[in-house]
């Protein structure tokens, strides 16, 4: 793989983004919701109702479940519940970059075709793998940047509004693993899938609809955490990351084999 060609096309993708700031609106909205939700539940509602979370029987159950976790052990009951809530919504925060980058990836190949810039691009020596890698990275890197910004705001919000020490729960290996291992890997899976689909369908909406399916397992993880007390521990994070890395490698290979220059050039209108 020729990195110069990958970087050249990646540079083009990033330059192209400057003219489409609206593409980040879904991601920013999802991020804002993920940041606001734990503040609302853990800080605003108790402040408005005057009832502490630790006085609620429902949250007591959650506290019992999470009490022996490293990030809650040293906190008082109210702070422990708050930190648990902030942790739970991290998965939702992971979804924000995916939603931001999805339409970008879905348009990646079909968008070039519609703009009639695909044929000149394919007429260069760029290989299919280089093209797909550049397209995936072109959607992934901005998503990662958005993810970092959302996380920084989340930590700052916890430090400002939650009880002392709660924000430290967002800097534990478990939280960082969710954000910086599962998040990027899930993003890569979604984006690789979207780029692959984008090279097989002649309608970007189809690509987006199919690729958004990757959000489902993450949503299931979020629901499992909230409803059945499933704890995503560091070993589970590493396991999910490893599986996603394998899936991503397979998807990229599949994408290369499915990318049919001839069909794209001659049959797409």
């Amino acid at each position, binding site marked *: 793989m020729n990195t110069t060609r990958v970087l050249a096309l990646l540079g083009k993708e990033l330059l*192209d983004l400057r003219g489409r700031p609206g593409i980040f609106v879904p991601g920013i909205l999802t991020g804002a919701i993920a940041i606001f939700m734990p503040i609302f539940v853990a800080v605003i509602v108790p402040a408005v109702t005057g009832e502490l979370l630790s006085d609620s029987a429902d949250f007591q159950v959650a506290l019992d479940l999470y009490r022996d976790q490293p990030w809650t052990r040293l906190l008082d009951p109210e702070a422990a519940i708050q930190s648990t809530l902030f942790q739970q919504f991290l998965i939702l925060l992971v979804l924000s970059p995916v939603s931001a980058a999805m339409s970008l990836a879905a348009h990646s190949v079909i968008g070039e075709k519609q703009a*009639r810039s695909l044929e000149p691009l394919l*007429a260069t020596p760029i290989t299919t793998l280089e093209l797909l890698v550049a397209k995936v990275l072109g959607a992934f890197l901005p998503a990662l940047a958005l993810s970092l910004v959302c996380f920084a705001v989340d930590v700052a919000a916890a430090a400002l509004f939650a009880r002392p020490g709660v924000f430290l729960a967002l800097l534990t290996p478990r939280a960082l693993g969710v954000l910086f291992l599962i998040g990027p890997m899930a993003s890569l899976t979604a984006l690789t899938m979207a780029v692959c689909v984008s090279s097989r369908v002649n309608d970007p909406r189809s690509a987006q609809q199919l690729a958004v399916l990757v959000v489902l397992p993450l949503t299931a993880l979020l629901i499992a955490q909230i409803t059945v007390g499933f704890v995503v521990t560091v070993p589970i994070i590493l396991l999910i990351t490893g599986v996603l890395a394998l899936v991503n490698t397979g998807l990229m290979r599949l994408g290369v084999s499915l990318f049919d220059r001839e069909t794209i050039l001659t049959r797409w209108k």
Partner: protein
Amino acid sequence: MLAADTLTKTFGARVAVEGVSFDVAAGEIFALVGPNGAGKTTTLRMLAGLIAPSSGTVRFRGEPMAGAAAALRAAIGLLTEAPGLWDRLTVRQNLHVHARLHGLSRPEHAVDMAMDLFGIADRATDIPAVLSKGLRQRVALARTLLHDPAVVLLDEPTSGLDPESASDVRELVVRLRHDRRAVIISTHNLDEVDRLADRVALLNTRLVAVDSPGSLRTRAFGTRVRITLSTAGAEYGAALRATGAGDVREDGRTLSIGLEPDGPPIPALVRALVQAGAGVEAVEREEASLEQVYLRMMKDERP
């Protein structure tokens, strides 16, 4: 320089191109002409390494390029039918990305050179959307030549351009010939072909004919001379036939005579007319337009 060796391309049951062979030398402008759906663009795409032929081979400098599509793409410049510029990037950025995709060691220098050569340096920071169609085509041509390809393929390079822009593009094409590049141009504009091309291939899935425009005229219509007289020419037809000229057509004051290799030469025809008392006002070679040649040959090709 570049050769098509019995190229055939099928899409499912449909045959797009069948058994097409020709070669193009350095410094030659070779035109591909044919009706819509004749396989011109498909042929160009096979030559450019964009799609693989179903059978047959593309040869570059004598070497078969089967399995070496990326190398072929690196050696050839393809101007696609639409300029296909990235609309959110400036002219300079468009060219710079392509220079890097071609792995040029000094992309900035190559971009500056190309912009100077094509007279677009003053529009370097503009985005394509604000450029005229002619200027966009210039940028696309600059992009095509960034990596200094020995072979340039041009798909409908003047399509949709105003006469001035089209003339500019034609000048650039002539410049490519002077640079000793092999140029293959696909077009519907037969006047353009007549002005530019050293050889023409008439394509209609299969090759109908390949030759210089002049030779194609001779093949389609033979060689004729037109003699304009000061009076009606009908009475002088017999004098011409007496010299051995078999194909004489009379139309008012004009006589059209088909020239045969073993027939009388033009001076003998003029002499016979003068001796018969005709007032000869003008003698000129009669040339069919390339459009007439094209229509005649394509008509003959139809089953």
